[in-house]
């Protein structure tokens, strides 16, 4: 019975999330079968749908890894959205400034610029936390609003395409393009970059001393202080890596999908990344699965909006419900177990 309980509660969570989804579809006045079919066909039914899921997985995976690295060091980076904007801006600016460079140089350089800008955007709150004890939760979210507006400002001024009336930047040079992996789809090599990042994060956290310190500081900063670990420096490392991965997500979106900077370059990838990190339970393999799952949920929801008129914000309802239920699950497992049993086990 004790072994069965975690499986049963997981099934209960999945079933409850499905019921919430079905209820929303019903409330939207759509036919459940038609909407469900539209959802599945849109996300998984065709090669194009599948490739779109992986296109969306790419930024979610990168930013989700970033959020997770921060969480594990006790750095609650909920401003990945802003770091994505910072990374996209820096990558675009870098590519536009150096149009003559050959692709093998420009591509890594631009991606690196994105990583650096994202890291810088998170290092501010990281420094404020490490040195002054200010809440990174507040500062990362405030800087997100700043970043979004800075992008709005730049595409109207310094980075504006003069030949075009709308607020967008000029197209980035040929050299700053991630190759398409699958003929006839938008799936680009950024997906491989994201998978490599997952392996890199796994290696960093589990097989290096810095990774060990990072996780130790997340578990118990006071004990680390006593043991002589430089807590402040470790928090900075986590903040930099966390923001850097989110910034890389922004750069990859430019080089793989948009090829120019525009407002709304990320439809909330940075916020979704928090859900990805939480559902992936901070393990890279789990985060890959969560990113694919959430991407499928979002792509399917968009398809369902087209086919059955159900607003695609249903994806946020399902994600919020999932996280809330996952949080409540331990209590579900304790349920009806006498107090003494728990103490003894």
């Amino acid at each position, binding site marked *: 019975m004790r072994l069965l309980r975690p499986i049963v509660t997981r099934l209960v969570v999945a079933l409850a999330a499905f019921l919430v989804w079905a209820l*929303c579809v019903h*409330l*939207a*006045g759509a036919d459940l079968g038609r909407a469900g079919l539209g959802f599945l066909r849109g996300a998984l039914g065709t090669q194009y749908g599948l490739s779109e899921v992986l296109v969306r997985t790419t930024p979610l995976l990168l930013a989700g890894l970033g959020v997770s690295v921060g969480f594990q060091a006790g750095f*609650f980076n*909920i401003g990945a959205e802003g770091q994505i904007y910072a990374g996209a801006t820096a990558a675009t600016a870098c590519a536009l400034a150096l149009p003559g460079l050959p692709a093998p140089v420009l591509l890594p350089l631009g991606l690196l610029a994105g990583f650096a800008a994202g890291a810088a955007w998170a290092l501010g709150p990281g420094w*404020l936390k490490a040195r*002054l*004890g*200010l*809440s990174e*939760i*507040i*500062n990362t*979210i*405030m*800087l997100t*609003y*700043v970043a979004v*507006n*800075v992008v*709005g*400002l730049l595409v*109207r*001024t310094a980075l504006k395409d003069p030949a075009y009336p709308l607020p967008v930047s000029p197209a980035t040079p040929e050299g700053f393009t991630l190759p398409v992996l699958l003929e006839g789809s938008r799936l680009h090599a950024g997906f491989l970059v994201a998978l490599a990042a997952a392996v890199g994060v796994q290696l960093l956290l589990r097989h290096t001393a810095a990774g060990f310190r990072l996780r130790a500081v997340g578990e118990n900063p006071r004990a680390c202080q006593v043991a002589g670990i430089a807590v402040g420096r470790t928090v900075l490392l986590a903040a930099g890596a966390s923001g850097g991965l989110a910034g890389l997500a922004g750069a990859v979106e430019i080089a793989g999908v948009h090829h120019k900077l525009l407002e709304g370059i990320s439809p909330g990838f940075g*916020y979704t990344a*928090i*859900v990805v990190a*939480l559902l992936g339970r901070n393990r890279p393999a789990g985060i890959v699965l969560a990113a694919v799952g959430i991407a499928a949920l979002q792509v399917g929801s968009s398809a369902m909006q087209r086919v059955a008129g159900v*607003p695609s*914000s*249903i*994806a*946020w*309802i*399902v*994600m*919020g*419900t999932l*996280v*809330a239920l996952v*949080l*409540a699950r*331990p*209590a579900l497992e304790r349920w009806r177990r006498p*107090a003494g049993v*728990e*103490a003894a086990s």
Partner: protein
Amino acid sequence: MNAGLLDQLGDLATASVRMATPLALAGLGEAWSERSGLLNIGLEAVMLGGAFAAFLVAAATGSPWLGVGAGAAAGAVVALVHAFLAVTCRADQTVAGLALNFLASGVTSFAFLRLYGRGTDLPSCPVLAAVPVPGLSDIPFLGRVLFHQSALVYLACAALVVSWVVFSRTEWGTRLHAVGENPRGADSVGLSVARLRYLAAAVNGALGGVGGASLTVATLGFFQENITGGRGYIALVVVILGRRHPAGVFLAALMLGAADALQFRVQALGVAIPSQLFIMFPYVATIAVLLFTAGRSRPPAALGLPFDRRER
């Protein structure tokens, strides 16, 4: 000083008080919650839920006051869900709050699109009229700024006084303080930590919900997706700045409300600078102001920590 400039200043001060009201209400509520040891990052969800429920009810019934009531109820429901996750399930309070923010954003946007579609013109709701305080509203300058406002501004002042009295002069206030600082000690003298935290969450939700409602049924008269635009997070800053003291929270709300009002005012002047430069001003001001409090305020000892009375 010439009369024109004084007029301008008066307008700005009036707008500052108006923009400060949602922050003050939500901040005062969060002060209750944080004193009891519950850190509710889901304040954005509380305000968004309140703003949406108030809009729906006001638009349906034509009564902004019924809307305010609905906003309080919706906010309380959101905060009680947070309390259920944090107190009863002993989940991480920050993560629980984030989950609620996502959920509220999804639910309000889903319901709004379902009910009103994706039209170009925003549907509107009736708005609370300004209520001049007899006598006081005739005072030059100050009368207009302080005593010619919507009733929710006066409600925020009442919440300030009530919170202050409860925190410093009543048994209740002492008990809240006790469960926030030392839940085990409070438990051992027979206080119910869970019940007090639920109570604080309900007060937080009701005040935050009215704060959100003040956006839709007192200031703007319409609703749009994610209308709160991070004000829930700014209200959290207000609580830190005000060191969880009602008067401090109120003053901090006025300060950041002024930043918001200034932003709107400069935008309305129609200068040839993109509006994004001004829109980000309140957020930058929030970070700048937060810098000044560094290291000065000590949060309650048990803030953010779950409590299990069976552990020792």
